[in-house]
């Protein structure tokens, strides 16, 4: 194994997307992405991990980015902690069709769904995908506890429900001060957080506009933090909006200059979503064969995010930027 590099204490931290993924994602790595659900989430990471082929990955996110389904389809993810998947969509379309195929067909591997249901009659030898259910707040609290370097956070959600019944990591205790019931939510063990930000400098100060999601906490919870920056700015420009630096340089291991890293999903003040490519992906993914064709075309057929952008069409992206600017722009 290579000598451990102290990335966080480097003065300048620029890397390419390929380098950032290969440096921080290995077989068995646990990771998350910033943003929430689809917005300002680093979708490019899922495509790059699919290309690089790391195995036995663990993914954790409050409401999961659809990208994780891609890595479940490639068989690269073996553990998935979440509160929500966009699974049931209008017109009977399945949002996470690879998860569905794990459940129904054990393909590419069987799934243990939160201890509540699992792939019936599975005869193969693949290790099951473990899905663990939480609420959004509880997943957030796992990041919060890790960010604070404490073993757990107290929480009042889910009393009387089946969530703590099937998720034994949620512990029940009587508060020693008042003897009232409280749930404990354990910290997560997180190797890498990939976070898309509107601005960053080379030192790794990441600035966000719009909602913050859990990025403040993810950036402290993860051993390594990679920023995908829509724009690289000077540290002097960072000084202009210091309250927007939700990720200070001391958290950051690498900065990747990568506009449109969230595509096909939107970034506040930068660009809109691409409903066409999203819908195409979703419809194509409904069968495993057509999903594989989609992957060959849009993922394996692109060397990097720029080629993915090129395939969508730069003129469409230019239009998408204009569209986002109707609602907001990011100040210099």
């Amino acid at each position, binding site marked *: 194994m290579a000598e451990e590099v102290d990335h966080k204490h480097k003065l300048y931290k620029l890397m390419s997307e390929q380098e950032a993924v290969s440096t921080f994602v290995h077989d068995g790595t646990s990771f998350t992405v910033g943003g929430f659900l689809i*917005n300002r989430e680093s979708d490019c990471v899922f495509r790059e991990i699919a290309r690089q082929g790391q195995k036995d990955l663990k993914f954790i996110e409050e409401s999961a980015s659809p990208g994780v389904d891609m890595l479940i389809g490639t068989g690269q993810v073996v553990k998935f902690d979440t*509160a929500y998947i966009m699974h049931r969509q209008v017109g009977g*379309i399945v949002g996470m069709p690879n998860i569905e195929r794990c459940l129904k067909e054990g393909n590419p591997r069987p799934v243990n769904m939160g201890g509540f249901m699992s792939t019936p009659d599975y005869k193969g030898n693949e290790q099951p995908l473990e899905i663990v259910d939480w609420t*959004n707040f509880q997943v957030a609290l796992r990041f919060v506890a890790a960010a604070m370097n404490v073993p757990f956070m107290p929480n*009042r959600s889910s*009393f009387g429900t089946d969530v703590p019944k099937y998720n034994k990591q949620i512990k029940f205790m009587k508060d020693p001060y008042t003897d009232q019931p409280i749930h404990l939510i354990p910290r997560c063990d997180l190797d890498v957080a990939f976070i898309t930000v509107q601005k960053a400098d080379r030192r790794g100060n990441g600035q966000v506009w719009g*909602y*913050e999601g859990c990025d403040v906490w993810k950036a402290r919870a993860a051993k390594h933090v990679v920023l995908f920056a829509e724009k690289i700015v000077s540290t002097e420009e960072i000084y202009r909006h210091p309250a927007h630096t939700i990720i200070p340089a001391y958290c950051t291991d690498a900065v990747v200059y990568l506009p449109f890293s969230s595509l096909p999903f939107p970034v506040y003040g930068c660009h809109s979503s691409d409903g066409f490519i999203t819908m195409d992906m979703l419809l194509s993914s409904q069968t495993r064969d057509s999903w594989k064709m989609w992957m060959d075309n849009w993922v394996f057929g692109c060397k990097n995010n720029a080629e993915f952008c090129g395939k969508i*069409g730069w003129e469409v992206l230019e239009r998408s930027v204009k569209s986002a600017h109707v609602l*907001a722009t990011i100040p210099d």
Partner: protein
Amino acid sequence: MADRKVTPEMMAEKEKWNQIYKVCCVASREFKDRNCVFGGVGISFLAVAIAKQVHAPNMILVAEAGYVGFTGVTSMGSPADNAGGFMAMCHQGLFDMFRDQQAGFMDQACLGLAQIDKFGNVGVSYVNPLIRMNGSGGGGDISSSAKSVTYVGEYNPRQFQAKVDYITNPGFLDGSKNARQKAGLVGEGPSAFVTDRGIFRFDPETHEMYLSDVFPWQDDKEIAEIVDAAPWDMKVAKDLKIIAPPSEDEANAVAMMDPLQGYRITQFMERPSAKYILMGRHDLIAYNYNAILVEESLRNNMKVMI
């Protein structure tokens, strides 16, 4: 109830509105001005947004990703939709929103459901034997801690269960007195389930769900059918209320927030923009078609809002 008559006018009104109008316009009336209201996604957001536009202009709309007090110029595709940032009082984070909710600042919330039992316990993650639903998301937290929760959804008798397969959202638990409080929950529980075939509420003493409001076109036979479909002896309110159909203002609010006709045309493939998708087109012309519709709508709405 005996002297209620369903007139042809009522039946015409019934046909006039699709299920989304029937659910969301009616549910919007549950939300009060100046309250702080947690909207879900899709139709559960739409219901809250209609309220803000029609009768509750000072409602503080919150979306779990971190947007507070925004104008709702368009309905939100996700709780982190860029539109949530527009004319917002505060941009913060997801943890912050749930913290503030657990602290009791959220007065009301609107959520969808897959299964519900007599005491308002709800499941949204799993349906036996092998159906995975979306998962609780923030719903488990919201139903635990928001002061009150209004559920919305198209009526389906399968939603009403003697026992929810997998409870994600606590209702009144076993229905016993102070059951929520004893369990450690902060919020006061569900207040209503608004459907296109009536509103269900909870008895303040027994916490049992009963049919409390119906549309003017729902006759005794239909009411009996709904009540009989429930796996418990569902009661009907003695003073059963009649729901006013969607108003013109409410309908306008839906139209205003629906540039791509996602609510007005319920079948996906029948929406105008679907033709480009069906053609497999990803080009600028296709993209432009949707973008122009959305942007025009936003610009028009901004004029109204500002």
